[in-house]
Each structure stands twice: as C-alpha cells, then as structure tokens.
C-alpha cells in the first residue's frame, strides 16, 4: 500500500512522519500548484467546492507518483465534506484508478469504524504506535507555533520578506527532524531563527482575525495567500483554527463530551442555535470573540457554494452591524484571482486603519 493524503498548509510534514512511522509507504502529496487545481477542476462537478477540487487534483498527482491508497478525514455535521472521500473514490474509479480509501471520521458516533480504519493504517507492532503518534503530534504543534510566530513577526519586520524567508528555513529544519531528540533540537533552532528576524519593537500593527472553512484557512494556495498578503500590508493576523486545536476538539474533547470551543459556541447562540455543519457556528462565535478582544476586523474565508459558510456569511453581516465590527467575506473558487483578493484586502486594511485612527483620535 503506497499511501497519499490531502495537503493542507504545513501539516503534510507531520502527517507524512505519522504514516511512515506506522509502517506505511508514503507518497508525499506535491505542493498545490495551478496544475493541481486545473487537474482537479477538470474532473470535479462544477458546483463542488474549492477544497474538493484541490483534493481531486492532489489525489491524481499522488496517483501519478505511484500512490494506490488515500487517507483523509471525514466531515463534521451536515457538510458535503462527509461524502467527499466516497465521491473522490468513484470519480477516480471512473477514470480507471482503483485506489483504496481510508476515511477517518471523528470518533463520536463512529468509534468502531474509526478503529477499523485506523487498524488498516497501523502496520507496526502496537508498542511503537504511541511513540510515533507522540512524535508526529509534537511536530504538528511545532509547525503551528512557527506559523503563529510568523503572523506576529511579519507586520513588524524591518526588511520586507525576512519573515517569510525565516519561515521557509524553519520548515525545512522541522522536516529534517527524524526523532524526538532531533525534534527538540529543531525547536531550539527554530526559536533562534525566528528571534533573529529584525523587527520594529515600537510597531503597533492592525490586528485581523481569520475565520472560515478549515481547508481554505489553512492552505495558502486556496486563499490567495491571505495571511502573507495581510502581514506585508502591516497587519498582524490571528487564526482561530489550527490543525492541532481542531483535532484535539473534534477527536478527543467531543468524544469525552468535554465542550470544546465553549466560548465560541456560547457567543454564537444569540445568532445561531443550530449546528449547521463545517465551521459555520464557530466562525460566528469567533468573530464575536475577536471583536471583544480588541481586534480591528475579521476576514471570513468561504469556499464558493459552501452551505455552512453561506449561512455564516448571512449571520456575520448582522454580527458586524450589531457590534460595529468590520467583517469581510472572501468567496474562493478556481476563478478567484490573486489580484482581486489583493485589492479587497488593501481596501479592507484602509477601512480598519481609518476606523482605528478615528476611534483613537488624533494624538497631539
């Protein structure tokens, strides 16, 4: 079994280690490029969402590299993503590719199935599973930390582009770590590299929260590099969704009935009492939280035709006007031009910086 998986942001680095450590031969999904998207769009239903199309392309590129099995996660709640693995499998079959598919559903309500699926992935003695999982998790956490730090550094950097260069260096160091010991060395090295990016300590950047559907929030290719663009426009970005956080909540906390995202769900309740699937309800709550925590605005990233995000967008309009808090939705699909995203982001940054100026008054 040569296995491939969806590529989402930097997570592929840790996921590859996890699958390899569990005794699988891994076909690393190639970076998502225009070719991936073209390929995916050609073989996808037109009104499927952008993540579906990118995944379709990724799988085809993985198969071309020799993959014969795909592992992916299932969806949460009433969102089409729950069907995606099966849809992808059928499309691939019609194209003449018989691949094995392994779908990891959140444990709540799917425990037996999840164990069954996981056992297909575990091809080493059980005694080695724990250390492998711990190592991959550690990597994933470090990757999330690096990204979070880059969001902080970018608007403060003295030399344009130095954060992005440092970030790339860090990622390649993390990729190279092969065991727990090397990982902790990598952690130190990463700290060193990030600390050496010269920043302006006096800068008080604007702060923007990123909410939206997890795939388009996490994968820069899917969102026209929103986070990087905002950073270079002098905005500190904060993301509510990190893969470690999402997995913890959906795979563990939810299973043990520990309410995750307590605040977000509670704060969303005046607007939306129903679970609408995907990240709809969380986005509403997170927006309220960002507004209370002194952020200047929120960018809502939504795949075009995504039902949970369409619902969220409608509600966010109300949240925005109730709180006097700027929220901009960007719909993303294969026709989205990077320039169009850029123009809107520039205008949004103008808007929030004028608003801040006005609220703080002129400093005499």
């Amino acid at each position: 079994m040569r296995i491939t998986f969806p590529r989402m942001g930097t997570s592929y680095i840790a996921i590859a280690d996890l699958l390899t450590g569990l005794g699988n031969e891994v076909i690393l999904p190639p970076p998502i490029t225009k070719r991936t998207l073209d390929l995916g769009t050609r073989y996808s239903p037109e009104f499927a969402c952008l993540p579906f199309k990118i995944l379709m392309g990724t799988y085809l590129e993985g198969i071309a590299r020799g993959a014969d099995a795909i592992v992916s996660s299932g969806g949460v709640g009433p969102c089409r993503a729950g069907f995606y693995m099966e849809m992808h499998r059928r499309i691939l079959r019609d194209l003449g590719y018989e691949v094995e598919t392994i779908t990891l559903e959140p444990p709540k309500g799917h425990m037996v199935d999840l164990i069954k699926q996981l056992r297909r992935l575990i091809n080493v003695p059980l005694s080695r599973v724990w250390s492998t999982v711990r190592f991959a998790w550690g990597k994933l956490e470090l990757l999330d930390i690096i990204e979070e730090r880059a969001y902080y550094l970018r608007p403060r950097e003295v030399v344009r582009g130095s954060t992005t260069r440092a970030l790339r260096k860090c990622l390649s160091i993390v990729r190279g770590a092969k065991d727990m010991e090397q990982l902790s060395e990598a952690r130190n090295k990463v700290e060193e590299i990030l600390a050496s990016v010269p920043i302006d300590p006096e800068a008080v950047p604007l702060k923007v929260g990123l909410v939206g559907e997890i795939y388009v929030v996490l994968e820069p290719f899917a969102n026209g590099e929103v986070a990087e663009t905002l950073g270079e426009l002098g905005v500190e970005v904060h993301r509510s969704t990190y893969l470690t956080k999402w997995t913890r909540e959906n795979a563990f906390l939810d299973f043990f009935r520990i309410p995750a995202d307590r605040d977000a769900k509670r704060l969303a309740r005046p607007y939306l009492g129903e679970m609408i699937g995907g990240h709809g309800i969380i986005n509403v709550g997170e927006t309220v939280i960002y507004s209370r925590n002194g952020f200047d605005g929120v960018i809502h990233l939504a795949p075009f035709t995504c039902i949970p995000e369409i619902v969220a967008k409608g509600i966010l309009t109300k949240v925005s006007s109730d709180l006097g808090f700027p929220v901009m939705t960007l719909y993303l699909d294969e026709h989205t031009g990077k320039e169009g995203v850029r123009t809107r982001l520039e205008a949004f940054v103008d808007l929030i910086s004028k608003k801040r100026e006005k609220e703080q008054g002129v400093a005499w």
Partner: protein
Amino acid sequence: MNVFLGIDLGSVSTNLVLLNEEAELIDSLYLRTGGRPIQAIQEGLRVLGGRHRGGLHVLGAGTTGSGRRLAALVIGADVVKNEITAHAVASLKEVPGVRTILEIGGQDSKIIILQDGVVVDFAMNTVCAAGTGSFLDHQAARMNIPIEEFGERALQSKSPTRIAGRCSVFAESDMIHKQQMGHKVEDIIAGLCEALVRNYLNNVAKGKDIRPPVVFQGGVAANAGIRVAFEKALGVSVIVPRHFDVMGAIGAALLAQEAVADGRPSQFKGFDVGIRDYVTNSFVCQDCPNHCEVVQVIEEGEVVGRWGDRCGKWSASVTAPTPKVPHYLEGAI
C-alpha cells in the same frame, strides 16, 4: 501652475486628472485603455502636457485602478491606492456627508458604505459583469442606439418592459424576444436599466445598509436611465457628481496631495514619459509546476518592474531603483 496628477488605469478606460493646490479640477482626460495600458498613459500625459504647454509643475502624483502598479511604475507615483479608497476619497470631497457610493465602471461595479466620513463596508462584483459599462455598450450597439442617447431614450418610456437581468447573456435573449413581441424600444431600454439595477442590488449590494445621501459614479452614471432606475428602486434621490466619470483619478490625485503634504519632493518622472521607450513582456517561469506568468516592464532597456511570481524570486530580482513609497504602501507596489 502647481498641480496634482491622478491616474485611474482601468480595464476599459484610463482617466487622468489635474487638480490645483485648492484641490479643484482643472483638467481631465478620458481615454480607452484598449488593452494597451502603457500607451494609454503615455498618450494621456502627452495630451495633458501639450494642452498646458509645459506650464505644469507636478507636486504629487497618484495612481489607482486595476493597473495601478503598472501606472505607478511608468509615471513615478507618490501614492498607489486601491479603487475603493480612491473612489471614497473623491466622493467625500464632492458630497461631504455621503453614506452610500454606487460605482459602476467598464467591467466592475462596487458599493461603498460610509459613516461619518469613513468607509465602513464595501463590496465588489465577483462572478458577474452584467450591468457594467461593457454590457450596456454592447446592447446599445446591437440596438443601433448611440450609447450617449441610451439613458435619455430610457427616460421616454411610460411602462418599462420586464427584462430578465440575472445574466447578461439571458438578458440579451430576453430583449430580443421582447423586441420580436413588439415592445417599444424605449420600454425595452428602460426595462433593461431596471433589470441591471435589480441585478446590482441583489448581487453587489446584497446585505448592505443603503442610506442617503447616495452618490452614483463611474462611467455608467452618465446613463440617466440607470440613475432613475436606482431612484425608483431605492426610493431616495441619487446624486451624480459633476466629474462622475473620473472620480477614481480625482481620488488618486487627492491622496497624492495628502502623501506629499509633509513637503517631500514628488517622484513624478515628468510628462515626457510619453517619449520614453517602454516595453512589457511576459514569460512563463518553468522552475516549478505553478508556471507563474511573470510580467516585466522595461524602461529604456532596463527592467524597472516585475510581478506575477508567487514565490517572489523574480519580483525581488529587479535592481533598478523602485519608486519610493510610504512604508505602509510598500506591499502594494
């Protein structure tokens, strides 16, 4: 005379304006971009410079529009600004208390919501260009009516025909159908205006809180039929500013004035950029599967700008001095 220059390099038209130090419009020029943006700018500067026989001293220059980066590079701009902000700045100058700006141009349309002189919300059309200038142009040509008379003809209608306006292709077939049914041309034109306004309000302006004073600008504001259709649909009077067709350029000039207010010298290269030799070309970078189309601008044999690469290796490789811009604008150039 001391002036501020504003250029709005759009997909369909290129507009240039000159403001004096009191921020009053002293000259403006509207050109078709015609797919040759650099030539349009050069031509515009040549004409403007010629009209004033070299008596102009440019204190500041600003650019906006989808081609703002290119324009900034060619002329040496002090400020590069997105269209939303530029339009809002110009509108605020003309109608100080403005709350809503409806802007419809050649291929795009936008709505801007303001409160106490500050933009609080905006939207641009995304997937659909129905109702923009290009479509109206096309329909006017098809019906053999000069575009300048299109709006006036619409106003002559007593009972506008209902036209399906969701999609410009279907709107056209519906119009043909209505013509064949024997509806009067005026009624069809008026119906089209109403359909386009419905389309705009449902798509671009959806969910926006439209409050008066409402300003309508952009090239399509020349069309009185559309203005009246807006008034009918919104139930408020709609103001079309004097220089409705060059508001973006006016905004860019006003922003240039602000940018050099601290007394810094302008980066403007002079009206003679018209005689300098500019070449643009593009190539597809083959270094990774992204296959980015990299565009480069060559001034007098020297590469002065490159963009289009995702990874930044080409845009970062330009050695020629890039125009100095305020720090917060660096990302924009």
